[in-house]
């Protein structure tokens, strides 16, 4: 066994996290910042943080991830990182010439109390920030929240670039949350199809799913431009997809610039996508084109055709709150039974929401925020499941417990496809369904006796 020391008996742990279902804020801030066009994320801490985040993102996307660091030494940690930061800003604009430097803090710089806005002001005063270039920053202490929080904080800093002209631009802000570049592309396609003109931020499509063409661009075509970010203050409304990833930024624009917002679930699965499309429709006052009705109908069609393979199947889930909320609703709508659900991100409201979604399923769901994969594994040992949906780290549980396994979430380090095929929207729902059915049917084909082996499924 790969996880041979995991006991079935569950003992309460107060201080120890084992096999986490989360990581720290800065990597989320780094990923979000890559969704700004021409932006170099900068990690204000010791160089290991930056190295680790770049490595993890690289393994997930199989794409170059550029980011810089303040490379703290012992001295900087004692006397403060301001000097490092200032030197970094100067070096970055000189050598890499980004449009924007998006700085995030770390547990190190937060603990010593570096004040980024102040450092930025100093940089401005010292003329270290060329005209027309920007430095934005987010406070992302690793010891609070999770990578999701860090993402949200950087997205909020992006929203803080809003510079309303007072004249509405007729657009709708769409904040996709931490989804794949291809998901962001798909969201843009859907928004366009509905006939809504929008500003999507962040937008990593075209940045982290690039081509191989013989040239390397540190700053690819994609990403939300500074001009677009500034224009978010003139938009008609904001749709935030996922409260955990996108809610704060939307509420910021609402509160600060009176851009009314709706906070929706991430559009994974039928119903969440329905609400997203309908919110676009009602917000923009447009009609939904037949083409979208068709995509929706195809998803409903496949659900009805394959229902017998999904009905009452037990599922264990680990991931991030916004994704888990959406997938749980989707699974329930398929008559599947999500029985064990953990996220590493703290927050009681997550547990409440999951309980709501699984109400009336006729069983008590195991759900834990600030849980970990060790606990999920123990739950599975105590109540086995038919399917595990989780990031790549789930593979150790899947192999030990011989479970059908669908990789979904972050990070996915050992399979391809998430870079190129969306799981949001109706088409994404079809893909999720294809994957779920695929592993369940593979298992059936593997385990059926020869008399029961089926040609047609």
């Amino acid at each position, binding site marked *: 066994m790969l996880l041979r*020391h995991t006991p079935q008996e569950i003992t309460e742990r107060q201080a120890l996290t084992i096999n986490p279902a989360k990581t720290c804020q800065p990597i989320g801030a780094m990923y979000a910042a890559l969704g700004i066009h021409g932006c170099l994320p900068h990690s204000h801490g010791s160089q*290991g943080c930056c190295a680790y985040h770049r*490595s993890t993102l690289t393994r997930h996307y199989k794409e170059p991830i550029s980011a810089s660091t303040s490379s703290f030494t012992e001295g900087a940690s004692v006397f403060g990182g301001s000097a490092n930061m200032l030197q970094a800003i100067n070096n970055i604009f000189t050598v890499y010439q980004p449009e924007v430097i998006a700085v995030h803090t770390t547990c190190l710089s937060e603990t010593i109390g570096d004040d980024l806005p102040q450092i930025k002001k100093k940089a401005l005063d010292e003329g270290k920030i060329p005209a027309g270039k920007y430095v934005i920053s987010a406070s992302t202490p690793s010891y609070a929240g999770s990578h999701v929080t860090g993402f949200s904080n950087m997205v909020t800093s992006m929203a803080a670039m809003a510079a309303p002209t007072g004249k509405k631009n007729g657009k709708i802000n769409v904040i996709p949350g931490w989804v794949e570049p291809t998901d962001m592309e798909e969201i843009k396609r859907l928004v366009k199809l509905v006939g809504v003109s929008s500003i999507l931020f962040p937008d990593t499509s075209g940045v982290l799913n690039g081509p191989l063409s013989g040239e390397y661009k540190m700053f690819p075509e994609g990403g939300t431009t500074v001009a677009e970010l500034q224009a978010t203050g003139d938009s008609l409304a904001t749709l935030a997809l996922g409260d955990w990833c996108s809610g704060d930024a939307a509420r910021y624009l609402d509160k600060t610039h009176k851009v009314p917002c709706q906070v929706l679930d991430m559009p994974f699965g039928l119903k969440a996508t329905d609400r997203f499309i309908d919110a676009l429709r009602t917000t923009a006052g447009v009609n939904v084109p037949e083409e979208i009705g068709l995509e929706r109908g195809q998803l409903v069609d496949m659900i009805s055709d394959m229902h017998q393979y999904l009905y009452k199947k037990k599922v264990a889930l680990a991931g991030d709150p916004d994704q888990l909320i959406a997938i749980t609703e989707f699974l329930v709508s398929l008559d599947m039974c999500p029985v064990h659900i953990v996220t590493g991100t703290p927050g009681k409201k997550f547990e409440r929401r999951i309980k709501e979604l699984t109400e009336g399923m006729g069983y008590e769901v195991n759900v834990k925020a600030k849980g970990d994969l060790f606990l999920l594994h123990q739950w599975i040992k105590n109540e086995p499941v038919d399917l595990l949906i989780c990031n790549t780290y789930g593979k150790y549980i899947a192999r030990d417990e011989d479970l059908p396994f669908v990789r979904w979430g972050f990070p996915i380090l050992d399979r391809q496809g998430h870079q190129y095929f969306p799981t949001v929207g109706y088409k994404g729902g079809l893909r999720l369904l294809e994957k779920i059915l695929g592993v369940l049917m593979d298992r059936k084909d593997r385990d059926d006796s020869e008399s029961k082996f089926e040609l047609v499924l």
Partner: protein
Amino acid sequence: MTTAMKKPTGDWQPADIKAELIKKYPAKIARKRAKQIIINEAQENETPEIMANVRTIPGIITMRGCTYAGCKGVIMGPTRDIVNLVHGPIGCSFYAWLTRRNQTDAGPDGDNFMTYCLSTDMQEQDIIFGGEKKLAAAIQEAYDLFHPRSIAVFATCPVGLIGDDIHTVAATMKEKFGDCNVYAFSCEGYKGVSQSAGHHIANNQVFRHIVGENDAEKPGKYKINLLGEYNIGGDGFEIDRIFEKCGITCISTFSGNSTYDQFASAHTVDLNAVMCHRSINYVADMLETKFGIPWIKVNFIGADSTAKSLRKIAQYFDDQALIDRVEEVIEEEMPPVLAARQEVRPRTEGKTAMIFIGGSRAHHYSFLFSEMGMKTISAGHEFAHRDDYEGRRILPHLKVDADSRNIEEIEVNPDPTRYQPRKSAEEIEELQKKGVPFNSYEGLMPDMEQGSIIIDDLNQHEAEKLVEMLKPDLFCAGIKEKYSVQKLGVPMKQLHSYDSGGPYAGFQGAINFYQEIDRLVNSKVWSYMKAPWQENPQLSATYNWE
């Protein structure tokens, strides 16, 4: 294309290249980098001085990691039966979770905690009020769940800053448990200038808390430790295979596929064979001082180097039986190696490589490439010190800067009861005459061709420039560099993790490596980058009237 007859850098003047690399930098930075970019004009024992093991420049995209990575990730990570508990916010433990491909074989029911990621997941209140209580509780919970032989605690950045006394906590818990050795590593990421400081810190604590704990006599006639081998992609498995075949008993590997007890028994051997001296030479020195065990440099990367290293070990033991056995083994192992070499060589001959990794690996791998007729036209290390470039002999001339001074040097003295020199001064001298190179290693530079370019702490900008200018057939570095290089149409081989390959050490490893490199430098893939309409843009409609 073959550059066999040309100088390593082709049509480029090395000096121009250097100028190109640094011209974009602010003056101060350019001056500093100029000292870390060396045109190799090594003559005999005269090697140019390189600036190394110095601070990374803030804002310059570096390949380097931190002290924690060097300590927890590199040195302690590969030991399977020590529970590693990271004290700090969740991230550092998460990122070091199974990401290094250091393999282990615990058998069907041996302890193996490498698949587990433990953390105190420090929260804001822990930062404010201190994390010692939480650490103690976490150690207790880990002990209650796993009852391990040993628990190692690692500090991440904030721990040092808020002043948690992890060593006292560890000592207290050790005391409390009785049957579990608990100790801590103050390997905060901000210490030192690279992973290297972490290696040193790990060496110190392993030596202080584990080495010498088990005096039990282990069977074996020719007993050695292998230091600085991390079993990436199974390298260690292959080396163990060869040792066993030769009748050499490897008591302890630091630290690939290792166990707590191996470290505890490390002082019972008669020779330390040091592979990656950069990461482990401290332990070698301390074992010699305290227990009287000499050490020699070895290298099992490359079939020829492997043969050479085996011969050195045999020579050290100065026993004809072993010497003969080693020759037999080499004779048996080499033919398939040579066959494989010959098979690929027509396709690899004269191809060029660049290697920028580790602290001595770039050096090691340059041998393997030359076995395939490939030329290493530029190389450098990520966290090396001057001696890794210029050779150990220059150690005395090394000035220790503030960053290094902050890393503890532990005072070691001969063990009152257990110190026992394995060889007399005379024997050592004898052997040295015969060419057994005690306490010494060459640097990278003397082994590099004239005019090749040595670069310490290469960064993203320079890497890109190098590749654009010199268009190597292969670039070797780490995961962070992989795809930016490949975007330029140059295959990139990770020589930290071996991508998904390995083993590359020893004889079998050499064969694997030849085939892998052949695959990379001769893949059709790199010919697909341009679409037909980019290759022939003219718009002449042509129909085949079938």
